């Protein structure tokens, strides 16, 4: 997929660039302790990675530094990319922002460039060649790390969206054969589809006989969602389950009437409590209160 990364850095003719880069890498290895320290200090000074302790910053900085030098030398970015992804995975949950990650990589690039200036300031032509080799490679590295971070972030966001979507349609069992499906918030077509799917699978899995769909938390629905709701009720019946819809707001009731719903198919009760009572009646349960005398004689703990 990412062809260019496999190539080494071309500009002045491969041979020279490669030799220059290895010379450069040797220099960076030699001054590893010093440069790394300077980098870590500048990170702290720039108030980046504040979510992490100094010790952590230093450890990560060491690893990034070594990966960086290696990527410069070999011109292959796979290891760095993998590391960047792994690092992102660890630091994203701690609230590290994209600008911080880009910031530290650019800082390192800066620190290293300065050290190169210092080393080659006597020989301007050589410094030029070194920078010609260094800059594109360093840019690529910065790019790789930033892209790795953003991709990881997006992956996490996608996962969370998925999780939220699943959480948004819980099918709960309240009694043997009795399910409730409380819906809160806006129902969009995708959520409606998922809701139906979860409900039908839930009926199958828990052998539900009666389902209470509670719409108390839904302010309004449009007519296509209303139709979908009616279809869900009918599909549930085909699986042998009775659906009771509760908590219809006036707006939803109006939408249902407008689409001309067949009221014989729709079993509706005012609120969730009434719905559950109706469901219990259908299932043959009778809930009775313990008499006051019994309660007095044996006070319940808790």
């Amino acid at each position: 997929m990412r062809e260019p990364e496999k190539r080494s850095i071309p500009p002045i003719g491969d041979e020279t660039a490669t030799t220059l880069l290895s010379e450069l890498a040797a220099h960076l290895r030699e001054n590893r302790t010093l440069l790394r320290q300077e980098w870590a200090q500048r990170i702290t000074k720039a108030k980046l990675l504040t979510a992490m302790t100094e010790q952590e910053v230093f450890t990560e900085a060491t690893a990034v530094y070594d990966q960086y030098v290696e990527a410069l030398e070999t011109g292959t970015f796979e290891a760095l990319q993998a590391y960047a992804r792994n690092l992102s995975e660890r630091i994203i949950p701690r609230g590290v922002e994209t600008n911080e990650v880009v910031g530290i990589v650019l800082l390192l690039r800066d620190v290293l460039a300065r050290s190169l200036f210092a080393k080659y300031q006597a020989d301007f032509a050589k410094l030029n060649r070194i920078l010609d080799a260094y800059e594109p490679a360093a840019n690529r590295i910065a790019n790789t790390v930033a892209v790795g971070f953003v991709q990881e972030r997006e992956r996490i966001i996608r996962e969370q969206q998925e999780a939220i979507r699943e959480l948004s349609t819980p099918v709960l069992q309240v009694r043997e054969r009795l399910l409730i499906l409380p819906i809160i918030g806006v129902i969009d077509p995708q959520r409606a589809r998922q809701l139906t799917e979860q409900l039908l699978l839930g009926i199958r899995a828990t052998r539900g006989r009666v389902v209470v769909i509670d719409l108390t938390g839904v302010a309004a629905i449009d007519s296509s969602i209303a139709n979908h709701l009616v279809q869900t009720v009918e599909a549930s019946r085909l699986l042998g389950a009775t659906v009771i819809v509760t908590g219809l707001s006036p707006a939803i009731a109006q939408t249902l009437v407008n689409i001309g719903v067949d009221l014989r198919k729709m079993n509706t009760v005012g609120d969730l409590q009434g719905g559950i009572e109706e469901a219990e009646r259908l299932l043959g349960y009778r809930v009775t209160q313990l008499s006051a005398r019994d309660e007095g004689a044996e006070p319940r703990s808790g």
Partner: protein
Amino acid sequence: MAVPILKQGENLIASIQSALTDTDLVTLRDALVDKVAALRIRGVIVDVTALDVLDSFASRTLRDLAHMIRLRGARTVIVGIQPEVAFAMVQLGLTLEDIPTALDLEEGLKFLGTRR
């Protein structure tokens, strides 16, 4: 493919094992309607668990079957409609309106048992 029809007490159980052609369905309908009176049957269960599609012809045949059996003095219950099949059916407007349905064979038997 012929559908085996089992007699269990006062009930008949037709358990569909694989996809059926239209002819198979009509054969099944006629066989069931025929046996209801011959064996003094009270209830008929058609198990469609194995079907992953129920088209308009199949739905109509099942509905006709249920109505004919009712006229012959027994009740019909369709059991084992898969969730995906159920939703596809309602989207096509095939809701088997007045025919009892149940989750599976066990539920179907229970349903027939309570409505003696």
